[in-house]
């Protein structure tokens, strides 16, 4: 179960950024041996224009790093997965929690969140560089397929989804994720 593409957690943005990134370099040497920084940015950002359409996100990728980090520049963080939650979102080490069952609920986070997904069996920690507010919504494709009464072994191809979206953009901030448990409930065959 660990090795399905749908188990991945994507760090993205709400803004309409180009799908393919470019390599961000701050000088020479343009490439490091252990790191690369990808950038998704609007034309206005690359031309250093200070307007509402100027937004970008950068992902510094370092070999061996236990975090996946994304820097946001005038952009709105968004986390997406093709799974549904197994339990509530644990906010700031238990200060609050949310079951992601009300898309209008505002989730206020000071520093960090913990989320665990069903069937993927992975638990992720999400760290924020500054306090943010999120809304959450999810769709359970398994429950939907059950209602279709399909023949055994056949699935509809409908994907589950989980979306955690910040309510407003950050001028310059960072969101990073780290996997804290790959065997949350024992569903993962790698647990054996």
């Amino acid at each position, binding site marked *: 179960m660990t090795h*399905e593409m749908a*188990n991945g*957690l994507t760090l993205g943005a709400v803004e309409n950024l180009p*799908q393919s*990134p470019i390599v961000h370099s701050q000088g020479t040497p343009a*490439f490091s041996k252990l790191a690369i920084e990808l950038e998704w940015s609007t034309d206005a950002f690359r031309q250093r224009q200070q307007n509402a359409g100027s937004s970008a996100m950068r992902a510094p990728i*370092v070999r061996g790093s*236990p975090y996946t980090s994304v820097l946001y520049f005038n952009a709105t963080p968004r986390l*997406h997965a093709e799974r549904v939650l197994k339990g509530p979102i644990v906010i700031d080490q238990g200060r609050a929690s949310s079951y992601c069952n009300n898309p209008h609920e505002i989730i206020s986070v000071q520093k960090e969140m913990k989320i665990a997904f069903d069937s993927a069996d992975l638990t992720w920690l999400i760290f924020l560089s500054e306090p943010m507010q999120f809304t959450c919504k999810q769709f359970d494709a398994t429950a939907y397929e059950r209602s279709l009464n399909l023949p055994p072994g056949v699935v509809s191809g409908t994907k589950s989804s989980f979306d955690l979206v910040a309510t407003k953009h950050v001028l310059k901030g960072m969101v990073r994720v780290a996997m804290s448990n790959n065997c949350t409930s024992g569903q993962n065959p790698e647990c054996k």
Partner: protein
Amino acid sequence: MRQAPDMEERTPLKSNAIDEEYYYSYQLEAATLREFELTPLQSASTSDIQYLSEQKSDPKRVWMYSLACFFGFACSALLLLGQRNANELTEGAAWSSKAAPFSTVDPTTLGVLGTERPWISRPGKVFGDLVDKDLPLPTNSWFQNFLLGSGNDEDGNKVFQVPYILDIAGSITGIRTHACHVQANDRMVMVRDFTPKRPILSDFIVRR
């Protein structure tokens, strides 16, 4: 420091047995000290014998030792500096060398067969304006899958960063993080690949 009695006074002056033993231990210690001080540093010829006490007081020898120490420190500094320069040459040149080329002549004019390079093998848009800066571009890096292809956002473009597998082929624009399971035995270390997709309804209909 205790003062040793004279070596010639071998007869104990005191009759007490404990004092006598104490007295001879003094004599033994004094003899050992003298033997050490009189040990020659060079025994090849008796005329060149120098003793420890003499060596300490010889300003010429002190000056020679100081010069040797200075020479040793200078050599160490030169070695370290040379090693640093060598690292800069080998590591920096791999990415950012701007050395003049050996030749600017087109090889085909010299009779070498030319190779038609298709557009797909050229550096993609991912390099942005770095292509115009005459910089060497990586061709065999661990993150190469981020740089290959026209879109580099397909499922196959995975990067094994370890402890995660990363790609940019998620449902939304951004970077996707996958769990990574490393398997190892006495002959190899490998990362398990992803399982194929489950059959969907359309596949089921086509097969029947």
